């Protein structure tokens, strides 16, 4: 991976020899990677190759899994986030995450979004209203729900729920958004909406997206990283990786020989 030379000032995430193990079993081994500000990076690879595990270590969600051990270094904006003095809640506010399955709270649409800003100290009703509207607008959901903000979020369709989850993450005003197969449970039209959304959000956020859909990776990402059995095989400009991959394994995977 040292062949890639990023502009230092533009790097927002830098991992070095990052390994993650569940008990005895290594899920991610010695991955070094740099991710640039305001880009979309796609992680591809067969299931079980450690994409989600790697993603979860970027906002320390792996801390919640008791058997999970993370070693190596992860710097975000030059700060080592695995240090014990890091404010984990603050880190997660900065690095928002959206999961594969939409998981809105059993609350109203408004409350789903207002919850996180409240945790991070915003009390005034006017300010919260503003954040809710802005987040929903950015998630391209405002027009569909503006008249029913007080209704349960569970009444939304699957695609709307997933965009609500994106809005909920945006409401924290993060710098980075981690999306773990955000569209894999959605129908094609909802998927398209989510993809459009991601392309728009790139101007404001650095986005890392895990996807098992190669076309999706090719459509929306600037850089693509190919994982295999816990290792990072290759990472490059998406257009290069999909047309002239450097590694044999990458080529086999993107031409459908396995996966």
């Amino acid at each position, binding site marked *: 991976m040292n062949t890639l030379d990023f502009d230092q000032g533009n790097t927002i995430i830098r991992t070095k020899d990052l390994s993650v193990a569940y008990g005895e079993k290594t899920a991610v081994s010695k991955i070094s990677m740099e991710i640039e500000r305001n880009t979309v990076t796609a992680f591809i690879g067969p299931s079980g190759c450690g994409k989600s595990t790697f993603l979860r270590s970027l906002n320390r969600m792996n801390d919640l899994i008791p058997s999970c051990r993370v070693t190596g270094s992860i710097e975000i904006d030059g700060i080592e986030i695995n240090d014990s003095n890091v404010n984990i809640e603050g880190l997660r506010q900065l690095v928002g995450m959206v999961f594969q399955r939409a*998981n809105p709270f059993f609350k109203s649409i408004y409350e789903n979004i207002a919850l*996180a800003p409240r945790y991070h100290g915003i009390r005034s009703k006017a300010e919260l209203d503003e954040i809710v509207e802005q987040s929903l607008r950015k998630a391209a959901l405002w027009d569909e729900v503006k008249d029913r903000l007080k209704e349960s979020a569970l009444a939304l369709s699957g695609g709307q729920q997933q965009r609500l989850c994106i809005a909920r*993450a945006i409401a924290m005003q993060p710098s980075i958004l981690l999306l773990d197969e955000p569209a894999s449970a959605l129908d094609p039209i909802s998927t398209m909406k989510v993809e459009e959304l991601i392309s728009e959000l790139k101007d404001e956020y650095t986005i890392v997206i895990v996807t098992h859909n190669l076309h999706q990776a090719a459509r929306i990402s600037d850089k693509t990283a190919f994982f295999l059995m816990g290792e990072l095989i290759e990472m490059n400009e998406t257009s290069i990786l999909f047309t002239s991959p450097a590694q044999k394994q990458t080529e086999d995977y993107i031409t459908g020989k396995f996966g």
Partner: protein
Amino acid sequence: MNRQGSDGMTMIEKNVGRQQHRLARDKSYLQSKLLKPNKKQSLENFFGKAIAMSCAALLLIAVISIIYFIASKGLSTFFVNQVSIVDFLTGLKWDPEGEPALFGAFSFILGSFLVTVLAALVAAPLGIGAAIFMNEIYPTFGKKFVKPVIELLVGIPSVVYGYVGLTVLVPFIRERFEVLGFSLLAGGLVLALMILPTITSVATDAIEAVPQDMRNAARALGATRWQTIWHVVLHGALPGCLTAIVLGMARAFGEALAVQMVIGNTSKLPESIFDPISTLTSAITLNMGNTIQGTAYNNALWSLALLLLLMSLFFIMILRILGRKKLDNR
């Protein structure tokens, strides 16, 4: 989609051809399956239905006759013995053998409610707290040790609770507060201990039913563990926790033996939680044996039973409403 096969047919054409062939071959077989009844299955079907229906009918008959029995006896206080319903519900004097006989049951009604509410006030926070501990804070220890211990409490007969109350709680209250000891407080605490397992186990189920996804979502939004428990887990489990409390209260309201052993059983109204009280159940169990069938006294006790029955119907109604609320949440 239109991939050409070697013989010039598309995949779709091949597939359709295959299916048509199979359909033609299977036609007579299909007809025999569709049009001939299966004797064994329909016989089983008939007996299955008959057994299930007679069980349901038997249950229904039992419930209706119990209600009819209690209602006919209980209502004759008012319609045969001409006691006024208002006097019965609000009267402060209970003297069924006096001249004239007085049937004021207010102190029993009040006693039942007070002791139930006190038990719920004590047991609800403890039970829900224990459920949170077992699920969210220390699941390995909680599920291995705390849960079985609490479940053990369910199996203990109520007379044991009453006995413990009588030999430990009553003397303790007597010495600590220099009162009689037999009291609303003692009854409430004994009941709290009795309904604690009910509340804990139902609340545990409710908390377990909150999807793990929801906890992850909250943590990923930068919520602390406590914020997650308060705003997400407990909020999601709220209908279930309320169900737990109401179930506990229903049990407390109907409990007779353990309560009767520690509350002192006076028909005087209590002035503080240290005063002795009576409840509907204790009034019935203590007096039923001394009365003669058909007398006004005996009927009045049935009226108390009718009140108990109405209250449990009320509790069941609340539980039903809460159950529907839980479904709405999903």
